[in-house]
């Protein structure tokens, strides 16, 4: 079984490497967006899939990463990589600040706090004109590696792919770490786990901070891809779209995160005619998915796969 897993992983990787060839400029850009969204989906996998907590304010962390990195690169003259890392760290720091009070109580307080947080961040960025450009927005330099500017989205895509794989690797290791296993135990029975000495708030805060970090990195990379930031991008609608893609892709699988990213990046291309109704369709698919496919689209793929490989598929 381990061998088949490796083969599948290699196949997926080969597909991801080969995919952008011949797609043209707009295709490269879309593929880059898929990767950026997939990182956010990964971050929600950690938070919702493992932590059982929900955030409707990830646009706030995305914005912090984007603006943080852009400002550090343009105002302080830091190299691109450090900017992205700093963007992630800023988001993570604020993530911990929001999660700390909200997680001392049981229930859905974290979700409510994240909603307020995202609106707050958007407004602060808008009002703080001297720093962020407010209404005018902020110009962000293209990504560069060791002095070479990546002018082309084709090259940038491979950098994004590498970063996604790195984050996916971290996610996998986190799932097997002390915190990851604690979260799994908490999910099965929060009371039983806490009786065994697992500190519920601590591990969820760790998950939330990691999630905010991933989202911050993704936001930073997004800013450098776009070249221009405006606060309108980081609205509640994008937070909700993030949640939708993560649920639809599958919250318990890293390949699901990729599927989710692809869904959010490519669905608008397919649904061009339905301009206004697009968000309604997102909402409907979200509810249908929760009702009928709670493990996301990836579970369909997995099921087809098991039917193909094992003669006595039990499920």
């Amino acid at each position, binding site marked *: 079984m381990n061998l088949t897993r490796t083969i599948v992983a290699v196949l997926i990787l080969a597909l991801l490497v080969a995919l952008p060839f011949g797609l043209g400029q707009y295709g490269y850009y879309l593929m880059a967006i898929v990767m950026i969204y997939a990182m956010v989906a990964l971050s929600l996998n950690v938070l*919702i899939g493992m932590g*059982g*907590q*929900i955030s*409707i304010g990830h646009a706030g962390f995305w914005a912090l990463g984007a603006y943080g990195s852009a400002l550090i690169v343009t105002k302080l003259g830091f190299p691109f990589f450090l900017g992205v890392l700093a963007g992630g760290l800023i988001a993570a720091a604020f993530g911990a600040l*929001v999660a*700390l*009070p*909200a997680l*001392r*109580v*049981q*229930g*859905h*307080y974290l*979700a*409510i*706090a994240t*909603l*307020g*947080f995202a*609106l*707050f961040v958007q*407004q602060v960025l808008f*009002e703080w004109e001297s720093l962020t450009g407010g209404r005018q927005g902020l110009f962000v330099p293209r990504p560069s590696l060791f002095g070479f500017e990546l002018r082309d989205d084709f090259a940038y895509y491979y950098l994004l792919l590498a970063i996604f794989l790195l984050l996916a690797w971290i996610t996998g290791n986190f799932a097997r770490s002390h915190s990851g296993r604690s979260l799994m135990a908490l999910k099965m029975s929060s*009371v039983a786990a806490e*009786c065994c000495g697992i500190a519920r708030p601590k591990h969820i805060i760790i998950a939330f901070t990691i999630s905010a970090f991933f989202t911050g990195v993704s936001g930073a990379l997004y800013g450098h891809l776009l070249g221009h930031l405006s606060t309108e991008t980081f609205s*509640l609608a994008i937070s*909700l779209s993030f*949640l*939708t893609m993560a*649920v639809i892709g599958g919250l318990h699988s890293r390949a699901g995160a990729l599927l989710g990213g692809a869904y959010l990046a490519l669905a608008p291309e397919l649904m061009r005619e339905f301009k*206004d*109704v*697009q*968000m*309604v369709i*997102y*909402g*409907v698919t*979200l*509810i249908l998915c*929760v*009702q009928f496919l*709670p493990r996301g689209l990836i579970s369909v793929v997995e099921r087809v796969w098991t039917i193909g490989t094992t003669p006595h598929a039990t499920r």
Partner: protein
Amino acid sequence: MITQLLASGLALGSVYALLALSLVLIHKATDVVNFAQGEMAMFGTYACFALLTKTEFPLPVVMLAAVPLGILLGVATERITMGPLRSAPPVNALIATIGLWMIFHHTAGWIWGYDPVRFPSLFSPEPINILGARVAQNSLGIIAVSLLVMVLLYLFFEFTRMGIAMRAASQNRRAAQLMGVNVTRISLIAWGLATAVSVVCGLLIAPLTFLDFEMMLSVLLKAFAGAILGGFNSLPGAVVGCLVIGVVENLIAAYVSTAFKDTFAFGIIIVVLMFRPQGLFTREIVKKV
């Protein structure tokens, strides 16, 4: 000046209180925080507005029609989306309410357009003299309608069979079920009742803010803040919390700055969770195994 600010603050607060009541009602009955509550209120208000313009019924009739309309909207929503999720993990129901948020929000924009429209008010904006201060009739009217709704809710929970059953179910679902309370129906009634209350809230706030598909977002945030301030499991607590929020908001807008009028609620949420997470008016609930 200060009386005026207090009165309009209380009016604002009582509008928030109605939405907070809907949130707490559903939360107590089903353990779900309905993030779509504000959007459902907005949707119901638009429906009432359509009724008003299409049929030319007088405004008070339309306001009365809001109650059955809200109940219908809530019950249908519960049946279609929440019913199938009853045995799923709680986070799934929460995600479904966010799906509802998107559906109601954008369907309203799609059907009725994205431009704000003027919504007629039941009460004249002319101020009247009370204790030497000039207070807008509008504020007094809003406070009166909200109080009426709250009194009706109180009577329902204290003196009707269904209300008592709902209180029992919110205290201990399993025990209530063993005593013959139909828990499925409780959830249905909670959604219907809560949505009716929130549509009334929408009708009261629409004349102040214009009818707009974005209008409920800041109201929702402040209703959350008020409910958390009062303790998320207490109906009177949520009302008091929201009144405080309304007054504070008005004072901040008048004396400090209007820029953060809509987002200061976030600060309140964080501060309350930091120092008194169970809210100001409820004792901490100890969960037994």
